[in-house]
């Protein structure tokens, strides 16, 4: 057992940590509202290879593991990165896995022509893909229609849906330009795997959101005085943050384990993807809420950063569904596979 990142992993963390510090200070996050997309940041991410790394070497990428991507996602979350990184990575991996000419061509455009590809997390209803993450800025969307995995060029750029988290989400109408990537059992398997991967990366992004929001809250209550003492000395404040710190540490452990399991303990991968995303979503939300509340009136001023974190902690995972939905999916996998614990 080793909970420390390896040297390579630490280097990856350091690289992206420095990158976000430079390219994504919180002012940029604020400036990117309400669309939640910073084209400049996206370009820099591509330059850094954030998308290329997600794709297998055989398909023209760098073949990073899901754990590597998870470490990046955590940094992305810490900085509230206004770019559809997770969705694009997951979608690119789907294309790489599908193989064949159609997918390879689509992937090639993504890797070389800077077209943005994303994935719809839910099958269409009434020929519409609701709340597609990144859908307001993507060029292509991958979706599963119940039987087939499809790829569609978004001709009529999706209408940006104003949302709690200032994300570039859109409702996208399906049109006749959709091309089938693969059908049948393989399509479903790939789609479910993609959803698992999205949940793993989202879990780690939420760890970043939660951890950073906790730091913001802790710093605030150390500085802020009331009744002649720092408010962090009041048990009502201190105990709330202690609970949050515990949950955030727990969420980091389970989110990283889920990412690790995708490569190393595949029988538990689905289960851990779901459970870690649900847990991390609740942990991040709780940490953000407490930090915000302990800011007093400052907490809900747009000018203070904590509200940026709070809104994203709610909204980012919600495009999949509420935590109980994730927990239920995880439990169903446990029951189906009769896998035990640890």
């Amino acid at each position: 057992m080793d909970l420390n990142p390896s040297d390579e992993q630490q280097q990856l963390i350091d690289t992206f940590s420095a990158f976000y510090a430079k390219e994504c200070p919180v002012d940029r996050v604020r400036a990117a509202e309400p669309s939640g997309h910073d084209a400049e940041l996206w370009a820099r991410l591509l330059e850094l290879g954030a998308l290329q790394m997600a794709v297998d070497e055989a398909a023209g990428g760098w073949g990073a593991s899901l754990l590597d991507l998870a470490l990046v996602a955590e940094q992305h979350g810490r900085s509230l990165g206004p770019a559809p990184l997770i969705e694009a990575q997951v979608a690119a991996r789907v294309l790489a896995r599908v193989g064949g000419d159609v997918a390879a061509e689509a992937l090639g455009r993504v890797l070389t022509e800077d077209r943005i590809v994303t994935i719809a997390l839910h099958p269409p209803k009434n020929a519409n893909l609701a709340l597609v993450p990144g859908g307001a800025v993507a060029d292509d969307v991958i979706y599963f229609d119940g039987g087939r995995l499809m790829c569609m060029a978004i001709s009529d750029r999706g209408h940006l849906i104003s949302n709690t988290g200032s994300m570039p989400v859109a409702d996208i109408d399906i049109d006749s330009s959709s091309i089938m990537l693969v059908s049948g059992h393989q399509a479903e398997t790939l789609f479910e795997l993609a959803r698992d991967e999205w949940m793993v990366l989202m879990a780690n992004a939420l760890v970043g959101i939660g951890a950073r929001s906790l730091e913001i809250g802790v710093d605030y209550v150390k500085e802020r005085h009331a009744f002649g003492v720092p408010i962090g000395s009041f048990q009502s404040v201190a105990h709330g943050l202690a609970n949050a710190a515990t949950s955030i540490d727990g969420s980091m452990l389970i989110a990283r384990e889920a990412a690790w399991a995708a490569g190393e303990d595949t029988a538990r991968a689905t289960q851990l993807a779901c459970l870690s995303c649900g847990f991390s979503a609740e942990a991040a939300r709780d940490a953000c809420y407490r930090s915000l509340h302990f800011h007093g009136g400052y907490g809900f001023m747009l000018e203070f950063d904590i509200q940026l974190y709070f809104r994203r902690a709610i909204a980012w995972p919600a495009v999949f569904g509420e935590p109980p939905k994730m927990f239920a999916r995880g439990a169903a996998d446990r029951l189906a596979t009769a896998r035990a614990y640890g």
Partner: protein
Amino acid sequence: MDFRLGERSDAFRVKAKQFLSGHLTDEVREQMRSTGVHHNWDFHRARAAHGLLAPGWPEEFGGEGRDALEVLASAEEFQSAGAPTYGVGTTLMVANVIRHLGTEDQKRLILPQALSGDIIIVLGFTEPEAGSDVAAAQTRAVRDGDEWVINGQKMFTTNAQEADYVFLLTRTNPEVAKHKGLTTFLVPLRQAGVEIQPVITVSGERTNLTFYSDVRVDDSLRIGEIDGGWHVMTVGLTFERSIPQGGDSVRLIHAMEQWALASVDDVGRPRSEDPDVLARLGRAAAECEVTILLARRCAWLHHSGILPGVEGSMAKLFASESLTRQSADFVDMLGPDGIRSEGDATAIAEGIAEYSYRYALGTTTYGGTSEIQRNIIAQRGLGLPRPS
């Protein structure tokens, strides 16, 4: 025991409903939404003209002498309807202070204008470094002949941009214990030296920072004794400024119930038959009922000649914490659709749950944080010892 508010209250409620259906127009709502200002002068003056601004005040002041339950019934309607009422609340609180502690000149100058809806008064208590610990206020007032010269800064001076006066808590003696060197003034806002800087909050509501640079106020606008500001504050806070009556919950739950009745889930089953949806709606409805009852208890105590103390803290604590829980739960209940923003054309029920979630964040802080309310309940209600 009788849980009816009574026939007079019911009749007065009907009057409020009628007024609201005529005056709380889509335009008024849209203006609130787009500006974040929960005050509307036309609406405000019309409310006064219909006897609905200060119905509990004696007739000599322009009120109708209605009892606390009647006043509550109309207040419930205004809150449930989501009417712009922030200006009324602060104005009447200060008017009450003046009525009890002001000079005859002050009463003559302020009360008729306040009760006729011609002016509003806002609160200037909180400062950047003094929130819950309001007695730590540092805004200075220094005497200069018949006037006082004020320098300092206040936070969350909501509606300052609309108001005529700010009820300002100042420090007049920095040499004594913090509670003993405070004085309150009614400071005209439309004068040189007052700077109003808008502050937008996460719910879209607008409040303000206000800055005071060598602002002058005549001693005739001092409320209460010099260095007696803490007593004035104490009196002011007994006029239950803003105990929520559950109206925000009522509106929210109603919208969610309509959604449950009108929509179906992925397999075509009506949401109104989903046990999970029903359990969430029922829990919220139970908490909403309790919020209403805790507020009514305060009005009833008041009606019975008792000033609610701990009961007011309970009502405020429960209402705000409950609204926060409900809003979060409903956003979750709506699934991904829950995050569509208020104002987006695709939002469910105009995004009321999403808005409410952001709005609720303020309710557990404004008007005394939940932590302060819990301290009051523990110490005054349960008799627990103060921390040493």
